[in-house]
């Protein structure tokens, strides 16, 4: 475990003091020692210089007594003067202060030339260290002899030893005092920091109700003599008022800490209650956790709303039948809807975070990657239709890819939406076919118009010729065949012209039941010849309708002819009319007991020229014309095979039922 803040501070503190003490100890002792030694050296030179000057006169007079007195006085002057002696010009000892003879070794150990003021050497006897000074005794430049002086270093060493002891004592004392002072100063700081640490741990664990700041002797309500219970700072012992928004003090500025703190600094509450940096830190920490708590609550609310919206959005996206995907700037799928998942037959978790390479076969991957790169480069949307061939068959997809731009107009991702347009494609194909058929119809009508006249002439001449030839004979039969076939052609041409021509409607109000009867009167005889009965079941009242009576009669003729052709022999044709309850629509139902229409053919029966009849019986234009007339009257026609009655009762039968619904057009 690493040492705590307090230990570190103490360690640093004492290390610094120790280093400073050691440095001071070594430096000061060295400097003091040097200074003392230099002082002693200078003192030796000074004593020697004075003595050598005083020695001139006795030396000249060869007054050994005076010389001896001078030397003895000098030695007695200081305890650390070890000896003095005088050498003559030739270096012979003249006088000295040694007991029992002059030490021979000293004689030549130190000397000074005429042009020098003195010489100093450190000598060691083994038990004593002393400086030996050699100073010239001279008058001007005339040398009389040499004065030698020995000065013990003992005094300097004692002084240095004293200084070093004093330094050590001072250092120890300083460290001791510093320790006490440091403890006194550090205790509140370390306590506060420890409390801050505990509070921060509590906050990390989710407990934001921490109280780190110390209790104060006087709080804002005491200082301001305030009794406003509604104020958030009132009786709040752990949070300072300048950190709180919405305080009710008249001197307070409204707003958060950042807005009010400048004003609060001028307030007497702040001046009295604000503490040192540590206290401020604790108070701001409490305020911060309080603010954090509020913000976290808001954040949670916002998160809930966001999650709800996200779920809604996902629901909408999943509900959309189109598949939708979102890729990031690297092409990675970051969001997809259910349709996309269904398309790929994968779970959402298996798609999000993947790339095209992970999801599509190699061929599609190359294509999609190329498209994505173009989009990332150009930023232009891509709209296309994809033809998918799989075991289910052929399907078509309409795909739109749009680049999503970020704030700096760079492509941040791609949104892709796709829709299954297989059915639309089928309708488009039908429309195209219908358009083609319309063109053919128009062409056929044009041809019919052109050939109608020559066909009339052919028929006319053929009838004349038929009258002119004998009735019995091959020629008559041949001409009769010409007349017969010409009439078939004329009928085809007439149907074509009817199909193509848009004749002006002649609108009138008439009874539809009556109109049907008129039609039946024409065909009933023919139908009867082939044992085809007609059952009428009319709406009991008049079945009034506004429309083109002839065109609607044509509808009935076409439907009755189709029923007759489907029966061919021995059958029943049922005609039923009805008025809708609101009297706005009438229905005409014509059903037969014929061979019926197959499921494949039932969708084609309204196409022009589609017929299942033989070559001489149908032109394939009857139901097309019928369909056009009913549409002109804003009605509709439904076909059921077998008839609806069989389908509703579940009984077995055959035949076809056409149900025409027409608006009455009456108010």
């Amino acid at each position, binding site marked *: 475990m690493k040492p705590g803040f307090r230990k570190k501070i103490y360690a640093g503190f004492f290390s610094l003091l120790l*280093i400073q003490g*050691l*440095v001071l*100890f*070594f*430096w*000061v*002792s*060295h400097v003091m020692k040097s200074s003392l030694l230099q002082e002693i050296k200078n003192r030796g030179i000074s004593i020697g210089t004075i003595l050598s000057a005083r020695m*001139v*006169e006795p030396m*000249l*007079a*060869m*007054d050994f007594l005076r010389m001896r007195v001078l030397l003895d006085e000098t030695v007695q002057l200081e305890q650390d003067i070890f000896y003095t002696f005088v050498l003559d010009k030739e270096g*012979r*000892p*003249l*006088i*000295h202060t*040694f007991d*029992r*003879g*002059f*030490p*021979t*070794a*000293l004689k030549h*150990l130190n000397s000074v030339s005429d042009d020098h003021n003195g010489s100093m*050497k*450190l*000598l*060691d*006897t*083994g038990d004593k*260290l002393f400086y030996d000074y050699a100073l010239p005794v001279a*008058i*001007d430049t*005339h040398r009389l002899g040499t004065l030698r002086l020995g000065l013990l270093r003992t005094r300097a060493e004692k002084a240095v030893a004293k200084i070093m002891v004093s330094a050590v004592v001072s250092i120890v004392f300083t460290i001791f005092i510093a320790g006490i002072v440091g403890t006194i100063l550090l205790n509140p700081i370390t306590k506060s920091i420890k409390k801050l640490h505990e509070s921060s741990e509590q906050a990390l664990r989710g407990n934001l109700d921490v109280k780190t700041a110390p209790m104060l002797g006087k709080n804002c309500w005491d200082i301001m003599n305030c009794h406003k219970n509604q104020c958030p700072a009132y009786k709040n012992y752990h949070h300072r008022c300048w950190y709180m928004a919405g305080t009710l003090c008249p001197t307070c500025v409204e707003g958060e800490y950042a807005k009010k703190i400048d004003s609060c600094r001028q307030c007497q509450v702040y001046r009295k209650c604000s503490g040192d940096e540590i206290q401020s830190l604790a108070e701001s920490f409490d305020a911060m956790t309080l603010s954090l708590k509020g913000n976290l609550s808001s954040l949670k609310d916002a998160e809930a709303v966001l999650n709800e919206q996200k779920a809604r959005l996902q629901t909408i996206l999943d509900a959309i039948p189109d598949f939708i995907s979102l890729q990031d700037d690297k092409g990675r799928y970051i969001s997809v809807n259910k349709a996309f998942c269904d398309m790929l037959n994968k779970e959402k978790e298996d798609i999000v975070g993947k790339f095209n390479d992970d999801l599509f076969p190699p061929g599609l991957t190359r294509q999609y990657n190329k498209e994505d790169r173009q989009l990332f480069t150009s930023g232009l949307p891509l709209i296309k239709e994809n033809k998918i061939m799989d075991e289910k068959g052929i399907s078509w997809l309409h795909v739109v890819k749009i680049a999503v731009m970020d704030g700096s107009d760079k492509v941040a991702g791609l949104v892709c939406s796709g829709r299954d347009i297989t059915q639309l494609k089928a309708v488009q194909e039908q429309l195209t076919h219908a358009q083609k058929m319309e063109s053919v119809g128009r062409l056929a009508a044009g041809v019919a118009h052109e050939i109608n006249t020559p066909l009339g002439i052919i028929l006319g001449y053929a009838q004349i010729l038929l009258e002119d030839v004998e009735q019995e004979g091959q020629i008559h039969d041949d001409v009769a065949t010409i007349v017969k076939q010409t009439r078939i052609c004329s009928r085809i041409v007439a149907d074509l012209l009817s199909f193509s021509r848009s004749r002006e409607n002649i609108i009138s109000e008439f009874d539809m039941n009556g109109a049907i009867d008129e039609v039946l009167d024409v065909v009933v005889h023919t139908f009867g010849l082939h044992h085809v009965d007609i059952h009428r079941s009319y709406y009991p009242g008049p079945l009034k309708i506004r429309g083109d009576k002839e065109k609607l009669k044509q509808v009935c003729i076409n439907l009755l002819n189709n029923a007759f052709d489907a029966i061919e022999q021995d059958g029943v044709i049922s005609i039923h009319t009805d008025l809708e309850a609101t009297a706005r629509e009438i229905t005409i139902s014509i059903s037969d007991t014929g061979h019926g229409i197959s499921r494949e053919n039932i969708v084609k029966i309204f196409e022009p020229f589609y017929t299942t009849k033989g070559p001489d019986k149908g032109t394939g234009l009857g139901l097309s014309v019928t369909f056009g007339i009913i549409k002109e009257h804003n009605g509709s026609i439904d076909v059921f095979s077998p008839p609806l009655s069989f389908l509703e009762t579940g009984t077995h039968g055959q035949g076809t039922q056409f149900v025409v619904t027409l608006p009455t057009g009456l108010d």
Partner: protein
Amino acid sequence: MKIICLFLFSLLICPGCGDDEPAIKVDLKIKEQVIRPHEPDVITYAYLPQYSHTVSYTRHHLLVSYLRKKTGLNIKQIFPDTFDHHMCMVGENKIDISFSNPFVYVKMARKYGAKAFARSIEASGRENFRGQIICRKDNVAIKNLSHCVQKRWIAVDSTSAAGFLYPLGFFLDHGIEKSDFKEIAFAPGPGGKQEKVILAVYAGKYDIGTIREGALDVVVGKIDLQQIRILAMTAPYPGWVYAARKDLDTSVVEKIQQAFKALDMKNATHERILKAAHFAAVISSTDSNFDSVRELVTKTDINLTQ
């Protein structure tokens, strides 16, 4: 980081860890006795200690060296402490060549048989020299010689010529007896007597002082000479004299005399020697040259044998 800290710490500490300076081992147990060797055939030369020994040495050591070299004799300058000591040493044959004032000489001639053989010519070029009576410039009580009555007088020595004898004769000539002075003192202690007289007057301890002419130059730089006033000058008398002790070998005297005579100001080396001694030249002399001094002694009732 740790290495850098240790390096910095060492930098701070190391300057305080310097080794002590090296010491030379010495053995003081082997000792010898100091005995002055005796030098044979030494001719001793002494300058009457009217100045300090240092001044005496400075003025005469070149001359002594010259004489030693010129004569081939082992001449050495010695320094007696007082005038009486000087005279006694002549009488005890400890001084072979004496350079003294005429008063001392006539005493030594009378008492110890010393014999004059040369005398100096002052730097000013005069063969004779005078005494000076000085007082403080600001002493308003002494404006002329008559004002010296009942004043304190310090003289160089009772055997000084220009410092006592000549001024005493000068005072007698002007009617002032020894008893007219409040006090007559002599410069104390050995050597430096001329300077001591000047310093005593300068300090105001004595009202008047008597010195030889030129003595004030010796104290230039030591005191403010502007504060000293020369009250009077005595009559000139013969200058300082070289005398040989009684029974000194005449050949020695002859050699020294010849060496003196050879000194020439025109010679650069000699010029340096003569200027140091404050001489212009040294000329031959005889005892009779100092009869005027003997007359002055008689006039002042001084006993030459004392």
